């Protein structure tokens, strides 16, 4: 390994890139091509039938729709949270900052049963809300709560460094020009943070759409009402409908791809706006 490569001064190019590529092919590329091929091999009709079946479409509304709501709510409260954590000092701030990462670190199944226990009608918050006729567990509201839980860190962690890097002279300039705090926020601070906010919301959305473990316990999994698309994939596998499962997997993959494109697009829009090309 002491030989210096022809093009690269530092050694190890061949070895490391080789290992990386091989690993990647084995773990990612080959299995994913199996997905595409299986989808294709089922034939167009079967594909279309599967992905547009009423029960499946209902699951799209649940998975994609509720994820969207959860992402938006995370956008609002995550923004406030990020602002508070960066700009204010108060007792307990460090603890609050540390637990933001909890949904990252906690296994999804643990979160799933905990949320269910918390919001089921016989205990905890579920019990508190029962007299008001509000049911959380085993309803779409429960799914919403679970998806909000797992999406929160994405918004907060994306915004925090941006808020930290906000140049204070922008706010001072606005103040010298006669803007009160509210005006300064709306016209100067918020627009500057908008791309980061959108990126965080997009990430939260992408994660929520594919989420399984945290949701599947609290959802109740009633067809047409509280079934999420990943669950349907598993159902199809259990019925040995491999090409059906692959078809749904393909749909979810395409959706993830678009979310990724959107997120990258937002990044380059922001870069262009800042003159970074």
């Amino acid at each position, binding site marked *: *390994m*002491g030989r210096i490569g022809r093009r*690269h001064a*530092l*050694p*190890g*190019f061949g070895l*490391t*890139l080789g290992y*990386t590529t091989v*690993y*990647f092919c084995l*773990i*990612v590329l*080959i*299995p*994913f091509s*199996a*997905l595409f091929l299986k989808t294709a091999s089922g034939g167009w009709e079967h594909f279309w039938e599967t992905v547009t079946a009423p029960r499946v479409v209902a699951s799209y509304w649940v998975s994609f729709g509720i994820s969207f709501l959860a992402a938006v709510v995370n956008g609002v*409260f995550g923004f*406030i949270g990020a602002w508070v954590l960066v700009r204010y000092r108060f007792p307990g701030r460090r603890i*609050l900052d*540390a*637990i933001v*990462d*909890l949904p*990252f*670190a*906690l*296994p*999804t*199944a*643990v979160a*799933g*049963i*905990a949320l269910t*226990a*918390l919001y089921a009608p016989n205990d905890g918050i579920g019990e508190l809300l029962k007299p008001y006729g509000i049911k959380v567990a085993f309803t779409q509201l429960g799914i919403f709560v679970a998806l909000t839980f797992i999406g929160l860190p994405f918004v907060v962690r994306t915004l925090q460094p941006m808020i930290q890097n906000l140049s*204070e002279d922008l706010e*001072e300039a606005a*103040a010298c020009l006669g803007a009160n*705090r509210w005006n300064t926020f709306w016209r100067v601070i918020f627009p500057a943070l908008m791309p980061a906010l959108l990126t965080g919301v997009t990430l939260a959305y*992408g*994660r929520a*759409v*594919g989420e*399984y*473990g945290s949701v599947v316990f609290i959802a109740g999994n009633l067809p047409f009402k509280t079934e999420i698309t*990943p*669950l349907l*994939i598993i159902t199809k*596998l259990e019925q*040995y409908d*491999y090409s059906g*499962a692959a078809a749904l*997997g393909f749909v*979810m993959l395409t959706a*993830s791809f678009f979310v*990724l494109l959107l997120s*990258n697009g937002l990044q380059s829009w922001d870069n262009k706006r800042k003159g970074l090309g």
Partner: protein
Amino acid sequence: MAGNISLSHPASALRLATAESPVARAVLITITTGFFALFLLLPLAVVFQQAFSKGAEIFFKTLQDRYTLDAIRLTLLVAAIAVPLNTLFGLAAAWSLTRFRFPGRSLLVTLIDLPLWVSPVIGGLIYVLVFGAQGWVGPWLMERDVRVIFAVPGIVLATVFVTFPFVARGLIPLMQAQGVSEEEAALTLGANGWQIFWRVTVPKIKWGLLYGVILCNARAMGEFGAVSVVSGHIRGKTNTMPLHIEILYNEYQFAGAFAVASLLALLALATLILKTYAEWRAAQNLRDL
């Protein structure tokens, strides 16, 4: 109109032009604390509360149960295989992506994030499609009595897929920010590749590496969706801790399920603490440059 004629008022009592009113601050802090406590802290607290809800006896009994111990063993085994493999991958990927320029580099960087974008269920699905009964290689393997799906190798594969980005993502920004100059200096002084790696690079990246490994491990032990697809849910054989939790829960053994869950919750807390520490040390390293 702000204006207070008292002349010997301390300056700190005046609000800077760039600060919100105390009322606004209090409101925002309350909203944040309330929201975070409700959505983040309560579920965590519930895990422990439920685990002991039927008394400490059930708690310990579950943990000593044969199937629980098997699940714990399997979880540890899977992590012991997946984490080192992914650590190697992370090191190799970070080295090749941050030390060299080549076509397709940015594509590779994006692809490394793939498992984070994709539903974990898909992470299991793809291996079923290759190794399962109707898969490519499945029937061929089954003739030779090699089981991947519904057996431990499948679980390892699915876990490897879901967790391979973490070490790489911990290392790439760090190594990028640190730059190549030290390695190049070592090169001019006659060090070969391994020497450069061990004596120069590793000491610099150790905290970033630790950070990535901690996250990789946490996810490997806690993965549910992908593993659920490839496992046969066979008690004692192909159940990891998260799957075991699911089984106990579905059998209405709630206290037992939460008992096992509390172990994982403790792991999560340890992960958070270690991760924060490693992050802090890595940032310090960068500052000292």
